[in-house]
């Protein structure tokens, strides 16, 4: 796919001598929502960390036509890729507003005041709690904060690492609604890694299945939702 926004080929990464990812190929087109589905230990978080430049990685990562595979995290952010980390990663001792301002850290010049207003508009709960410590928010609110913080960097691509983790089903539904809105209303592209196959595949334009560091299946969200093996492995449906 030559017109892809994010084009990854042969991605390898690991920790010390242990290779976790054995050469992944995947892509995200402009305005597309792509889900990488995987169980615990499949390599989902490693994939996200490799894309963000948090760990050293092999293979090629092209974003918007330029290689970001050798960049440090701050350069990846400036190139237009933000990450919502697993477990939300909010600065628990900092106020909600400081969390958002930290998200705009790599933006040069100007005050991010307009961005603050914009995200307070999207998430009124955050506006109400802007002076509270982020650690005092509920899990769902912290996840919204993590998304808003990542968006403060004005990215073109948003990486979400298991956003549904530890959230009640009703909150998870709300959350995926928000992620869908980011694409529909702002034209964002999203790459989401998830275990929650049901909701994430409904949202996804395309999806990949990751198993122990290899991509073993790919298709549109609907195709994978209809796939018997997927149903069995990720939805707990025995066919």
């Amino acid at each position: 796919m030559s017109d892809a926004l994010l084009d990854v080929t042969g991605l390898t990464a690991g920790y010390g001598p242990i290779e976790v990812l054995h050469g992944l190929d995947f892509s995200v087109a402009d305005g597309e929502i792509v889900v990488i589905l995987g169980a615990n230990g499949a390599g989902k978080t490693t994939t996200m960390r490799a894309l963000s430049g948090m760990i050293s990685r092999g293979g090629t990562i092209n974003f918007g036509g330029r290689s970001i595979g050798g960049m440090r995290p701050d350069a990846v952010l400036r190139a237009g890729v933000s990450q919502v980390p697993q477990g939300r990663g909010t600065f628990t001792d900092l106020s909600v507003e400081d969390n958002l301002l930290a998200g705009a850290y790599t933006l040069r010049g100007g005050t991010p005041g307009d961005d603050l207003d914009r995200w307070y508009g999207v998430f009124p709960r955050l506006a109400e709690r802007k002076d509270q410590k982020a650690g005092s928010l509920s899990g769902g609110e912290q996840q919204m904060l993590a998304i808003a913080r990542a968006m403060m960097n004005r990215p073109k691509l948003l990486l979400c690492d298991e956003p549904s983790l530890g959230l009640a089903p009703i909150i998870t539904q709300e959350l995926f609604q928000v992620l869908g809105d980011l694409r529909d209303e702002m034209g964002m592209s999203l790459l989401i890694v998830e275990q929650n196959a049901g909701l994430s595949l409904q949202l996804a334009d395309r999806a990949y299945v990751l198993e122990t560091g290899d991509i073993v299946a790919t298709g549109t969200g609907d195709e994978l939702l209809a796939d018997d093996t997927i149903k069995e492995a990720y939805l707990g449906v025995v066919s």
Partner: protein
Amino acid sequence: MSLFIERMVNGLADGAIYSLLALALVVIFRSTGQLNFAQGEIGTFGAFVVSTLTLSGWPVWISIGTAMVVGFAISAGVERIVVRPIETRNPGAVIVALIGVFLAVNQLTAMIWGVDARGLPSVFPDDADDFVTVFGAPLRIARLGILAMLAVVVFLLWLLFNKTKIGLAMRAVANNQESSNLVGIRVGGILLLGWGLAGAIGVLAAAMLAPSAGLTGTLMLGPFLLASVAAVLGGLDSPLGAVVGGLLIGVTEAVIVGYVDFLGADMLFPVMLVILLAVLLLRPAGLFGSERVERV
């Protein structure tokens, strides 16, 4: 009454030195989770730099400013050359290495400047008649100046931490290094800055203390111990706690030395040890610290 006021103000002025040193300890502890044993010695080294510069005719203010830059560089160097490489391999070994740095800086100071005591000029008016009288108590300008200096440093640090982007980054790194990395903060640079800042504050504390205490290689030994108690008392991760803790320890010292005859100056450190143990047993997080002071 006038003697009491005089003793309390002098206690607060001593306490201001402990506060400055405790602030330096807290700045490092918040970001790195280490107690910098070399903090006091870097200060002493800097005070000798001030001495050399003033003896060669530099104004005291400029000498102190220059020495603070030297302290910044030494402390930042310790972080980069000693702490960071060891921490990635064995975090528990860092404290031993810092004791090593303590000894190394102490010996280096003795090698360069010898072991004889010397005077250091005060930045504040410090002649025999430079005092103001409050309720009959003669308060020396030089001592009041130290308290004013503490207020200025606290205000500047507050501005830095709360009103600047770099300060936001420092607070973010103290809270969560992984997430700091993810929002594009270069964590290594921020840690270096924090250590450097602590080094500079340590030099300032030493340069404030030396004119009244006399400049020797062991200038900061006692103050460092008292500042450690102050930092634990106030809460190792709380800048406010460091300031309050330092002043409390200074006043406690003045009371013990001045009014508790059966203890007196000789028993100062044992009493401080008891305070330290009491804090650790009754309120491990300190007066203003957050409950979670262990590294996570």
